[in-house]
């Protein structure tokens, strides 16, 4: 079985300061993995490497079996960047439907009708059907976050990458968002999510990859709670998370 994501001995540094050192892991179809770690541990950097925004100085990344340098099927990958809702200020004139359609901007092969159908379908999947003509800036932070998720889903990807998607969103909206991700995962979507919220690991995901420049842990989320090195940097408060079965 070809891994959806294959990271092999990847290293990266900013101006000589190492951020990632020899990181290797694989994700297979249907996986739902949280990428966690302290600030500056290289989580967002790794995600940016996966979507081709940064090039690793050492090692190799393969998506769907293809080296990143040869990978062209970006419609198979959906990406929700960090703090994306911060872009929505009072001058942005986009409607919800137009925002979601941006996710198809590179798909010149799709007819107008097909594009419309995909936008409607993506909004239905995130529970925002009927809000197509609302202005994006008029929605709540949680709803905006779901619009950006719909934008990533519009291309009907097989792999979804999210970088701290619920930052600045209230707890109830966060819970709804993660439940939605769980549902999408059950539909077959492979998901890798960068998060600081260790509670998410316990409640929603199947796997955890823990970074602190190098990969400290990758495996089942139940085992994660008991891993001694992980407890070392997540702190005593998180060590006490009591949902390990």
């Amino acid at each position, binding site marked *: 079985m070809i891994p959806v994501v294959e990271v092999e001995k990847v290293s990266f540094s900013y101006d000589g300061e190492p951020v990632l050192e020899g990181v290797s892991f694989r994700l297979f179809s249907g996986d739902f993995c949280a990428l966690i770690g302290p600030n500056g541990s290289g989580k967002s950097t790794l995600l940016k490497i996966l979507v*081709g925004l940064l090039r690793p100085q050492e090692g190799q990344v393969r998506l769907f079996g293809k080296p990143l340098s040869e990978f062209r099927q970006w*419609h198979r990958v959906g990406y929700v960047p960090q703090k994306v809702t911060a872009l929505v200020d009072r001058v*942005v004139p986009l409607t919800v439907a137009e925002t979601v359609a941006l996710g198809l901007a590179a798909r010149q092969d799709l007819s107008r009708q097909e594009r419309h159908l995909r936008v409607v379908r993506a909004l239905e999947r995130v529970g925002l059907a009927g809000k197509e003509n609302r202005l994006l800036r008029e929605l709540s932070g949680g709803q905006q976050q779901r619009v950006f998720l719909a934008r990533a889903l519009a291309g009907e990807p097989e792999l979804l990458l999210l970088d701290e998607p619920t930052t600045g969103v209230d707890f109830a909206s966060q819970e709804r968002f993660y439940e939605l991700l769980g549902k999408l995962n059950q539909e077959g979507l492979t998901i890798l999510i960068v998060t600081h919220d260790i509670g998410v690991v316990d409640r929603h995901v199947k796997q955890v990859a823990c970074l602190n420049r190098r990969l400290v842990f990758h495996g089942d989320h139940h085992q994660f709670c008991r891993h001694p090195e992980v407890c070392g940097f997540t702190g005593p408060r998180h060590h006490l998370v009591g949902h390990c079965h």
Partner: protein
Amino acid sequence: MTFLREYTFLWPALVGGLALGVAGALIGIFLILRRDSLLPHALTHVALVGVALGFLTTRWPLLWALGVTVLAAFAVLEIRERAGIYEDTAVGILAGLGMALALVLASVAGSYDVRLLSYLFGNILALSASEALLAVALAFLVAGVLASRGEALFFVAFDEESAATCGLRVRLLKFWLAALTAALVVLGMRMVGLLLVSALMVIPGAAALEIAHGLRQCYLFSALFGALSVLGGLAAAVLFNLPPSGAIVLFSGLLFLLSFGLRRLK
């Protein structure tokens, strides 16, 4: 119509002005969303270097201006990405250096006089028929680019990082935007002068963004405000014997105030 038959010299000003007003306003939307509203202002200063080079070589000042301005626009993109300089700092450095170099070159060329000043304030009424046709061609090019790649350009202006991950050729799109901005700046410099051309590109777009509900309305209002600015300004200039460039930009400012007020009334 009798008025226009009588004042035939107004035709190039009207046609060229409308074309540039509409095209500049449309491109202005993208500049505002990229927080790049000062880019045309900096480019006008560099365009003056091209004009001075034209004086120095005694030919084609506008062609020189176009070449130098397009190169400068590309340079700004590169400097920001590679040198890690703040955008407004890069723009400030470019504007200052451009103006200084232009003054030195014009002085060396012995044209530090009224010819140089004519580019500072422009004169839409002195637009030739060929310049008006050039403006129309540029407007069609802008419309063509927006019709075919408008959504992609908007995506890049709004959220560059996500646009890059969708497989869009972000760098190429940014170069298109920079090149169109540079071309509009150079032609706009003839029309309203380098001191005011950036205002004509930014104010109608800003007015449209105040009241537009959706991208399509944004394009529509922006083009409309660009056209109305030129028409209203020209009419005021002819009727009240005002400097056309100032009247055009003031009219666009009036439209901005109206849309700003309208939004607050909603």
